[in-house]
């Protein structure tokens, strides 16, 4: 059943969405899918050259995962806007040390409805969203606006 405007009220939370642990293979797959071949996301020699410790996930992959979280709750054609501010870097899990690195690479998206209003003849909601890793570090914060039936 599609969520309707009357189903939700201000302060309601959207269903929490938790990703699989992000690996370097996921980063390579996202690079190929999106065309974002910044070496920051796959090339360890570039990482050393610029004085960092590890490759990091594309901010847009974290936003893409957030998009998945949203569209698993509402139909994507209801989306009117979607904003994300990137707050911290995400290092992928190390396959040879999953025990200590899964937490930093597992993303949980939560959201809370902050506004209900009518605009352009539509019933719209604004929902604040935040993505955190399993250690509690905030990865992105933003919002989406959706028109609901």
């Amino acid at each position, binding site marked *: 059943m599609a969520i309707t405007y009357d189903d939700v009220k201000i302060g309601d939370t959207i269903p929490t969405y938790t990703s699989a642990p992000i690996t370097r293979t996921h980063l390579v797959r996202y690079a190929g899918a999106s065309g974002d071949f910044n070496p920051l996301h796959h090339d360890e020699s570039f990482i050393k050259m610029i004085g960092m410790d590890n490759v990091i996930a594309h901010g847009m*992959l974290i936003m893409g995962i957030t998009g998945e979280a949203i569209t698993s709750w509402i139909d994507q054609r209801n989306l009117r806007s979607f904003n994300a501010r990137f707050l911290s870097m995400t290092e992928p899990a190390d396959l040879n040390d999953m025990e200590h690195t899964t937490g930093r690479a597992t993303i949980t998206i939560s959201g809370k409805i902050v506004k209900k209003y009518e605009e352009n003849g539509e019933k719209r909601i604004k929902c604040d969203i935040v993505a955190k890793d399993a250690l509690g570090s905030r990865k992105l914060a933003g919002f989406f606006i959706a028109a609901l039936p």
Partner: protein
Amino acid sequence: MADRSKLGMEFPAYTMTVEESKIAEFAVAVGLKDDKAQIDPIYYDEEAAKKAGYQGIPVPPTFMTSFFFWTGEGLMGIVKALGIDLSKLLHSEEEYEYLGNIYAGDIITRKMKVVEMFERGKRDRIGRFVDVTVLETEIINQRGELVAKVRSTMMER
């Protein structure tokens, strides 16, 4: 640091076709899946998309950012045009306004403009000040309809 004289610059308009297989590939990638059998069929099966109320196979909500990478020399084209140092580049914010739908087979034109360039923080605090560049892009389909606007904020550490 980014070349401040580029403020207001409009990039050439680039056109590309939204390929059906690329939509499924993108949905698999953001779902952190291994195979398209694991994603919502609206992203690869036109029948399923139509049943769900779409006129064709839709693109995931953040797919539009890939238009920047698949046209005009991709990321390096943007970096070179603006004089940005790739080793210091970070993406700090992205915002989409959805004004219509984009479907597989659509022919999309992107029109991108540099709308803001400024410094944030103080130069005397080493490592704390950054150069910020804001790009705004209009996404227009083959019927001339403005289907989305994208606002991308980049910074150099």
